[in-house]
């Protein structure tokens, strides 16, 4: 995936802020505070997330995809009327 770079303990994610609102991303990061330490940067319309894995219980790949799914569910519940 172009917008996902997964290292051993660190992952970089590029998200379109029109698709993933910043406020929802921040809230999801707060909820994943025990799993990741995060920094957010904004370049043009993109949010650049750098996540450092804190927990040793889960793999970085699994934690990242779980985070993305959680984020999507949050956005759907907030924005989606359907």
């Amino acid at each position: 995936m172009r917008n996902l770079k997964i290292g051993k303990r660190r992952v970089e994610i590029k998200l379109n802020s029109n698709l993933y609102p910043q406020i929802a991303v921040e809230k999801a990061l707060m909820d994943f505070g025990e799993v990741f330490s995060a920094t957010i940067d904004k370049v043009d319309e993109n949010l650049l997330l750098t996540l450092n894995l804190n927990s040793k219980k889960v793999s970085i790949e699994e934690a990242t995809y779980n985070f993305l799914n959680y984020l999507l569910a949050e956005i759907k519940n907030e924005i989606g009327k359907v």
Partner: protein
Amino acid sequence: MIVSVNPKIYPLEIIYSAAYVFLDKGYILIDGNPEEEIFVQIKPKNKKENLEKLGNEFNNELVNYAVYVVQASRNQPLRKAIIERVLLTNTIEDEECPECKEEESKKEEENFIVDDPLGIAKPWSPPKETENEKPKNREKKG
């Protein structure tokens, strides 16, 4: 698996809803331009999952939610009218029509009166004595 979606046909909320259904089956990442083209990346959790089938199911979910949105917008005035009617009916009875309550209580009392052609339904306690019927021996002798 990457599914390309035209946001002019399927608005963003429909894409979110369709993707939401797939959260159990796979990992979802949405990308692209919301005004031109949106890419939905689906990575199946189960590696044996058929990718083409997964993509087709996603397309079906898009249609499913699109139809739902259209029907919901068509029915919205009707749903609104029904709910307004329900709420208004309650407020009229409670606040604006005290006479209706009196009529209802009268009707309830009437319903308690039972037909009694044989005269069975009599009170068990003896009838009260009127002043004229009082026994004379109780009168004081002067």
